[in-house]
């Protein structure tokens, strides 16, 4: 069996996954309005990605909260605010990295000669 014979099945699978990505169906949702992943489709790739995006969003919000608390004079240590900002930044970069890999594989498929 040649390694190329499995490509059609693989690409169909990938395309269906890309099809199910959230936000592809038109309007761009506000970050705060991201849907929480429902347990019914917890196995699908798009729900996994959606869950990841909403977690990154939650992290960004909690970091913004601690910075706000710090600036409004609450008893929040400086390092805690900065560490939560760092965590938010690194998890955002993780999300961007996942998106880049996905797009890369999508473009790889689009370049394929039929």
């Amino acid at each position, binding site marked *: 069996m040649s390694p190329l014979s499995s490509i059609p099945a693989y690409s169909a699978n990938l395309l269906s996954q890309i099809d199910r990505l959230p936000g592809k169906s038109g309007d761009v949702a506000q970050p705060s309005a991201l849907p929480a992943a429902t347990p019914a489709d917890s196995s699908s790739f798009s729900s996994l990605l959606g869950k*990841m995006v909403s977690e990154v969003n939650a992290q960004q919000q909690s970091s913004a909260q601690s910075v706000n608390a710090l600036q409004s004079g609450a008893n929040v*240590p400086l*390092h*805690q605010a900065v560490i939560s900002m760092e965590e938010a930044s690194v*998890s955002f970069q*993780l999300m961007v990295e996942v998106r880049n890999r996905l797009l890369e594989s999508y473009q790889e498929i689009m370049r394929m000669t039929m």
Partner: protein
Amino acid sequence: MIQILTGIQNTSAALDAEQTRLEVISQNIANAHTTHDVDGKPYQRRVVVFETALQNALAGGPASGNLPAIQVAKIERDTRPPMEEYDPGNPEADARGMVSSPNINIHEEMADLISASRTYEANLAVVKNARSMALQTLSIGRH
């Protein structure tokens, strides 16, 4: 929640503890000449006592799920006797003309301050390192 920077919880607790230590040292330096504390005696030097949170975990305390490495156990008074100096004109002077001043040696406090701030810096270096490790890991396979 994703634990994107591992080991940061412990470092954050250590930073908290060192900050408390810095606060206590600043209190000691500020009160180096306070001859009248709240109890009427000269101010006594305060010492921070750290403990690992393992004790709490063994006792089934609230920290058992998420272990901070360090926490402030208590802030104790230094039991060394107050220093005495001869100053008969001072309103706090006793019958012999001696004034009891706090048992604080400013040089000792400065050395403590340096130690606390270096420990704080070391913990910040851990945070920085964890961040750069995470970013390097994210760049696996990038060309």
